[in-house]
């Protein structure tokens, strides 16, 4: 992926995290758990993208 593509995905991830966080306030408990799981997944992807951007080995 080029830096531009990585940055695009980072933006996407950040936006979805922000939107999901806003929804957590009014979610039913089971939905909240689902959202938190997905948010963690997006955060892991974000870490990976940041590492790729820094040129560090991905792990």
């Amino acid at each position, binding site marked *: 992926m080029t830096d531009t593509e990585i940055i*695009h*995905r980072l*933006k996407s*991830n950040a936006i979805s995290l922000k*939107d999901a966080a*806003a*929804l957590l306030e009014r979610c039913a408990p089971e939905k909240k758990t689902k*959202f938190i799981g*997905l948010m963690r*997944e997006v955060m892991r992807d974000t870490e990976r993208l940041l590492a790729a951007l820094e040129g560090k080995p991905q792990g």
Partner: protein
Amino acid sequence: MSKLNILVVEDNVLAREVMAEHLAGQVVDFAADRPTAERKLKAGHYDICFIDLVLGEGDDYSGLKLIPLAASRGSYPVVMSSCDTEETISRAYALGCKEFYVKGDEAHSVAATIARYMRDDGGKSAQKILAGDFITNDPETRALVSEALKYTATDLPLMLLGPSGTGKTTLAQLLHAHSGREGDFVAINCAAYSEDLLEAELFGYKRGSFTGAHENRTGKLAQADKGTLFLDEIGAMSQNMQVKLLKAIEEKSFYPLGADKPEYSDFRIISATLEDVQILLAENKLRFDFFQRVHGMTLLLKPLARRKCDIMPLVQAFTGKKRLAFAPEAREYLLAHNWPGNTRELKRFVELIGAGTQGMVTLETVKRHITPAAAPSRPAKAAVTQAQYECALRHGLAAAADQFSAGVINRCIMENHGKKAAALAQLKISKTLLYATLERAGRTEGNHDGY
């Protein structure tokens, strides 16, 4: 309201869940990549298709390729992207995208998109209204109503102009019904009240605020909270009343008579008049600041005599289940009549005919029920206002003619939403003449109060 079928094309699983929340209540389907989206678009019908542009790692904006497919399948393509370069936006619109929004405020963007779609819905609402609640085959009137429907969900004021009986109140009710405003449609005919009574009717009053005020009374402004306040015959309102109402419109608050605390009301204004607004303004019967606040989008309804194609469809609509047949000469007479009372007169006529006629409607029957006094001829003074006449006496006919021409030009420009080119075409004048007339009129106006 029936549910919408919506396809969301989005590769980010969290974003898909977020969209699912924002689209709760609709029938929502998802696609995470281009092939799945293509397959779903070809197999089903979706009212709206939300499309992310970059679908997966290393993807080269494949979402763009879905736009023409969605459009060709009758869907309303909406791009949602975190990439908002001018080039991408232009490409998306060129490919048939209807709306492009930048990700980040989905709650608002999705709701706004659906509201716009419902308002527009490919003109289906307009078609339905024009075939049932506001029947017209006249292309200009159809276009006007369709255009007005696009503004129904906004808070913008609307002004309806047109002779008596052309359907201003009916249209106002329809516009309210399609506005999505949860409050009531509250109508008041300003010409039916004296100034004091109108104030009490509009603002309401508290017990004991004047002789006869035995109990608190809610005014029309408060009744129209979250709804629409329809001010009919707005030209009959006194200047004093206009000032008070202007303040209430601007501040969305007002004091009922005898109250020491303000009340609040979120009302939308639709006003109407059968008089010429330019004359009302010229004769200072309508304050300019008040007019500016209430006129918003202006709709001019044509008299029935200028939309004869509506006469027979309206006759059918007014008869209900009963069907009438007119002898050819009776039909011809109907179409030749100028219907000074417009739709209202036609409705009364149809009710009379429908109730008392057996068999074919003859010319004699039609003549018997049509008011012989055709259009009440306009009073001669209406051809020229007193102010115009005085201007001509004081400054000469040429100066008065310039003032009149400038008034016509300014009105035409206003009714064309500021587009001078359209006004030039309609008035069949050159740009030079337009500017010269406005300049001469401005000079004359500088020398006197104008009219």
